[in-house]
């Protein structure tokens, strides 16, 4: 049987979206540090503005450096297109604003990044879009929460803080049974560990700030369009299926079909909301994406070594990561994440809030920051930082115990990471 001779993932990470610069031969992706692009003549300018022909007009809408990154991420995810934004939150907002309007409703996992939770829970209701939050592990809860106004189901491939593994094929099927798309935040997995579109997701977004960029130096977000969802099959998505006065009566679904979402998100969303990525940030993030497969393999290896160490350490009362057999999604992770369940884990420290504080103050190599997915190992103790105003009961309700330490395992030599953790764990017990 013949096989499709597609370029493979590692190759696409380096090449997709870029050819050597036609005028200079530059092998690296040039930073097109420009706001605008000279038109050939008025006829071409009119054609560009009217979506009659493709090209760059103004860097809020598109930029050649950013476009390389967009094509590359679409290639890695197996999506038909991608739109980059200034941050992960901007990507989340862009996707929501492209497919929804006032009166619409979202069903979302309750175990998502705090910023995304705030946007859905507090901010979007001001614009008439409300959300019902459900237990991501409970398919019946997803089904029960869907109403006539629902327009999207949203979750993270790996949740927060319990690293819940989403059963993507099951939740995608529930969405599709109701004529709805499934949108996933795949920040913690990256396309190296999971290809959500192949598993049934319709829209994938990332905080590119994290593992995709990999170096903790630039913010960025992306919306990837899976291209398999039929926006014109019902009247639920008029932004895509109805004529739009913003471009002389174009219907994005009629003209672009499977690429309607990518086209509308850029033509309307970047044009009007303007959360565009800067070309310099695109350049920085591209350097990270080039080595994504190498880094993710190492992140996973180091995570395995760190977990083995933590499980044996007497100052550690529990370790939560899908690769640990006691994790509720251990079997599901083997099926959906055969290359590993990411590099973010949490563990419980004996001695609670006070021991947690002492642990953090005694790590020397690991960095104490409010971030994840850096090449460097990061730690945080939510009970003494991000969640310090909460009582023990409130913490428990948020799924964040007083003893919880979150670790984002980096690319240092695993022995050095372990030695650092061992020293800080010893110090944490000397109260």
């Amino acid at each position, binding site marked *: *049987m*013949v096989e*499709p*001779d*597609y*370029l493979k993932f590692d190759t696409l990470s380096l*090449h*997709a*979206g*870029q*050819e050597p610069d036609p005028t200079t031969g530059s092998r690296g992706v040039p930073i097109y540090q420009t706001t605008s692009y000279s038109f050939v003549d008025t006829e071409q300018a009119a*054609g560009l503005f*009217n*979506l*009659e*022909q*493709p*090209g*760059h007009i103004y860097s809020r*809408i*598109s*930029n*050649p450096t*950013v*476009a*390389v990154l*967009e*094509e590359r991420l*679409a*290639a890695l995810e*197996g*999506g*038909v*297109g*991608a*739109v*980059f934004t200034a941050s992960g939150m901007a990507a989340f907002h862009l996707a929501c604003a492209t497919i929804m309007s006032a009166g619409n409703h979202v069903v979302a996992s309750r175990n998502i990044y705090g910023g995304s939770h705030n946007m859905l829970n507090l901010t979007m209701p001001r614009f008439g879009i409300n959300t019902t939050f459900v237990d991501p592990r409970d398919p019946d809860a997803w089904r029960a929460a869907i109403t006539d106004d629902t327009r999207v189901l949203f979750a993270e491939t790996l949740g927060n803080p319990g690293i819940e593994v989403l059963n993507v094929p099951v939740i995608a099927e529930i969405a599709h049974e109701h004529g709805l798309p499934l949108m996933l935040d795949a920040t913690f997995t990256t396309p190296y560990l999971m290809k959500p579109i192949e598993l049934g997701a319709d829209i994938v977004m990332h905080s590119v700030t994290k593992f995709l960029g990999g170096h903790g130096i630039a913010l960025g977000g992306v919306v990837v369009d*899976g*291209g*398999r969802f*039929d926006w*014109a099959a019902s009247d639920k998505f008029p932004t895509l299926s109805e*004529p739009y006065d913003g*471009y*002389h*009566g*174009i*219907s994005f679904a*009629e*003209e*672009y*079909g*499977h*690429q309607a979402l*990518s086209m509308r998100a*850029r033509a309307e969303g970047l044009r009007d909301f303007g959360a565009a990525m800067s070309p310099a940030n695109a350049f920085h993030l591209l350097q990270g994406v080039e080595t994504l497969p190498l880094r993710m393999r190492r992140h996973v290896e180091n995570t395995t070594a760190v977990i083995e160490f933590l499980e044996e350490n007497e100052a550690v009362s529990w370790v939560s990561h899908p690769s640990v057999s006691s994790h509720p999604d251990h079997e599901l992770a083997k099926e959906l994440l055969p290359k590993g369940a990411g590099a973010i884990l949490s563990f419980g420290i004996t001695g609670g809030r006070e021991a947690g504080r002492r642990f953090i103050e005694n790590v020397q190599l690991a960095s104490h920051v409010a971030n994840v997915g850096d090449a460097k190992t990061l730690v945080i103790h939510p009970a003494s930082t991000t969640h310090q105003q909460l009582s023990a009961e409130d913490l428990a309700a948020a799924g964040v115990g007083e003893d919880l330490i979150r670790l984002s395992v980096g690319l240092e030599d695993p022995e050095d990471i372990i030695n650092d953790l061992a020293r800080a764990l010893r110090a944490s017990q000397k109260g």
Partner: protein
Amino acid sequence: MDLEFQGITVNFATGGVEIDHSQPPVLMVHGAGMDRTVWSQQTRYLAHHGFSAMAVDLPGHGDSSGELLSTIDEMADWLAGLIRSLDLGPVRLVGHSMGCLIALETAARHGDVTERLVLMGAAAAMPVHPDLLGAAERNEILAPQLMTAWAHGTRAHIAGNPTPGLWMRSGCQALLERAADGVIYNDLFACSSYEAGDIAGQVKCPITVIVGSEDKMTPPKATAQLVAGFSEVELLHLEGIGHMMMLEAPDQIREMMLTALQ
């Protein structure tokens, strides 16, 4: 635009512009397993450059309803009927791949409905690899994958999409994945069993043929064989471009179409 014709809904992309009976009509016909959106880089441009541009979804494809038509002859007869019902007079008929066979056969059998032909990815015979035909018959994802792999030139497998943010390979695969079960097989089988016969003797209108040097599905040699039979034919070359030339080289195709259609 939707139209009721012979009891089914026929869907067209018209570039967001209403059909204007005073403008010369251009009708674009897609290839096997695909739909109107393969012309997305041309339809709207032509619609704003003096043509009534219509990219049609064949029955059972894209957003058109109806049963699949199982031979090229049936498709040509159906298309001729559709053109007559549009009441726009003879059209400039543009075809891609299987759409070329339909266009040629329409011009051969119903010379009154075609003013000229523009063909892309054309050959007089379109044999299909048995593994592809088998995968299509079993509705396996391998069929969209093989078609996508073969339908693009080397460059399109890496980069070079002039539309910022779009990725060509998955664009093609997703389009083919959206086809209902049986559609790809129906079309590939129709292509592989088509025999052109004395098509050159029957087509009376002028023809422009565009060929990509890296077309693996209708290779330049096969296109040359087709062209050799015709007297009034213009052959245009695209260097480094594969079978999906309307998307791989949209700017060049737009210019070639504009010239050929005038």
